[in-house]
């Protein structure tokens, strides 16, 4: 079973789900609020971990039967009414920390397997990714975009690299260095902004949005992510 976590209107969730179905793999889709409302148990005994999710309106799902995860959590959840602000803040952090433990305990392909900095909304997290990618690609990471002559936005989904107008992937994003960065950071789906002269990484967005519709890149990205999850799980 592949877990797809995110809002139904999220283009990446929808396109990956279509591709998973086409490939014949079962999926369980949960929105962010559904995830945090799902009863679960996670039992750690030494290095051994087991657990079960009990999704509403679905069969209990042992964690051992989860084959991969597409994580598109908007980080917009907040406890429902009924708590005062300090209690709501406490419940928020306890819930988030618990689900980080559950999702990190799944030793399965995860797109994206975000660091805790992302979960906690640390603004230095994407900056650390940018600098790390620049090091891997042997490019510059200037302090701002100000000096760049132009910017090219690239969508990276596993081995798929899509340019703004169907351009071929630049050399920097076509090599093994990008794969190394993906493996090391757990970020397989990202928007990478390069200076148009190709010598600098200007931004990395590890949670890129995609326009819906057949003319956009959604289907190709969904197909690439589905194949990445399935292929890595096999």
């Amino acid at each position, binding site marked *: 079973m592949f877990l797809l976590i995110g809002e139904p209107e999220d283009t990446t969730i929808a396109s990956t789900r279509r591709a998973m179905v086409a490939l014949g793999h079962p999926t369980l889709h949960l929105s962010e609020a559904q995830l945090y409302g799902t*009863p*679960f*148990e*996670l*039992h*750690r*005994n*030494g*290095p051994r*971990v087991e657990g079960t999710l*009990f999704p509403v309106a679905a069969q209990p799902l042992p964690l051992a039967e989860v084959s991969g995860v597409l994580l598109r959590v908007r980080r917009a959840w907040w406890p429902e009414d009924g708590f005062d*602000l*300090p209690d709501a*803040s*406490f*419940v928020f*952090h*306890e*819930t*988030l*920390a*618990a*689900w*980080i*433990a*559950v999702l*990190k*305990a799944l030793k399965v392909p995860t797109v994206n397997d975000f*660091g*805790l*900095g992302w*979960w*906690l909304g*640390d*603004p*230095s*997290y994407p*900056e*650390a990714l940018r*600098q790390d990618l620049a090091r891997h690609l042997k490019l*510059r990471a*200037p*302090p701002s975009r100000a000096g760049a002559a132009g910017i090219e936005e690239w969508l990276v989904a596993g081995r798929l690299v899509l340019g703004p107008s169907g351009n071929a992937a630049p050399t920097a994003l076509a090599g093994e260095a990008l794969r190394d960065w993906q493996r090391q950071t757990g970020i397989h789906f990202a928007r990478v902004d390069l200076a148009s002269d190709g010598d600098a990484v200007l931004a990395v967005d590890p949670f890129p949005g995609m326009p819906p519709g057949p003319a956009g890149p959604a289907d190709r990205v969904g197909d690439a992510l589905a194949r990445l999850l399935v292929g890595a799980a096999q």
Partner: protein
Amino acid sequence: MILVIGSGRDKVFPVLVERLREAGAQFRALDEDALDRPIDIVAEEDGAGHLLFRITGQDCDGRVPIRAIFVRHAVARTLDPAVTEPLGALQVALNLMLLQVRCPVVNPPAHAFSNYSKVYQLGLLAEMGFEVPDTLLTNCPQAAAVFKPNCGSREIIFKGASNMMTLVQILTDARRARLVHLPNSPTVFQERIPGEDLRVHVIGEEWIATRLVSEDADYRRAAFNDERVRGEAAILPDGLGERCVAATRGMGLVASGIDFRVEPSGRHVVLELNPFPQFTFYERLSGQPIMAALVAHLMQLAAAPGGADSNLLV
């Protein structure tokens, strides 16, 4: 020159500043809670395309190269946006800078998140080969009700799942009635390891072990309640200190406070690793030279060869 970043309201930062002064160290201190004394951080590219940071404000004039940094961010003691927003903005700017400074940072904030999720961190420590308690994390009353640790006779304790302050409580029959509230907030249930509490502070390559003795299930509660907590120097079994150093380094940290329970058999069971320990609390209880070790380490880092290549001026 050492840069110390923290809060005048904290228990560690003012003591560290005082001890650095007593030791004759050269340092600058930035107090994040001194909002009336603003700090400015500017990043510029030097001629070779490298980043150079300048901090001005408080005691800084942006001209002195820094060779080692200690950071222990202020904690907002209110949810008032008038306080949290400027403090948050300052800490973001500092963290972005700390990603790119070339001198050692004790501890890099970007590497210090793992104890936000206690059970996640417990998994990391288990993967590093430490013994960990039998643990259940759940929001399910039924699962908690039937949880029985491997050593079935042991008591069960419960505590929070995040790094929000919670004190350990024993799951007594009376408290079992509260399990119905679990769907509101996941909770950690653990076997209660019999024996003594042990805190190991790692500072660089060194470690200082402190045994803590109290009647309470959580010695911190006893301390808060002004009940007696005894701290005394402890000896670690062969290899455990080195493993604590390796675990700290493995998480990208320089210093840590690692909590263990030590069974009467001598089995050491790890509970968590704190990236921002309350060094002074344990020093006060035990009289061990924990802050002196921290000061010595910072001075050693600042004097290390290669430190001249600083890209931070204060």
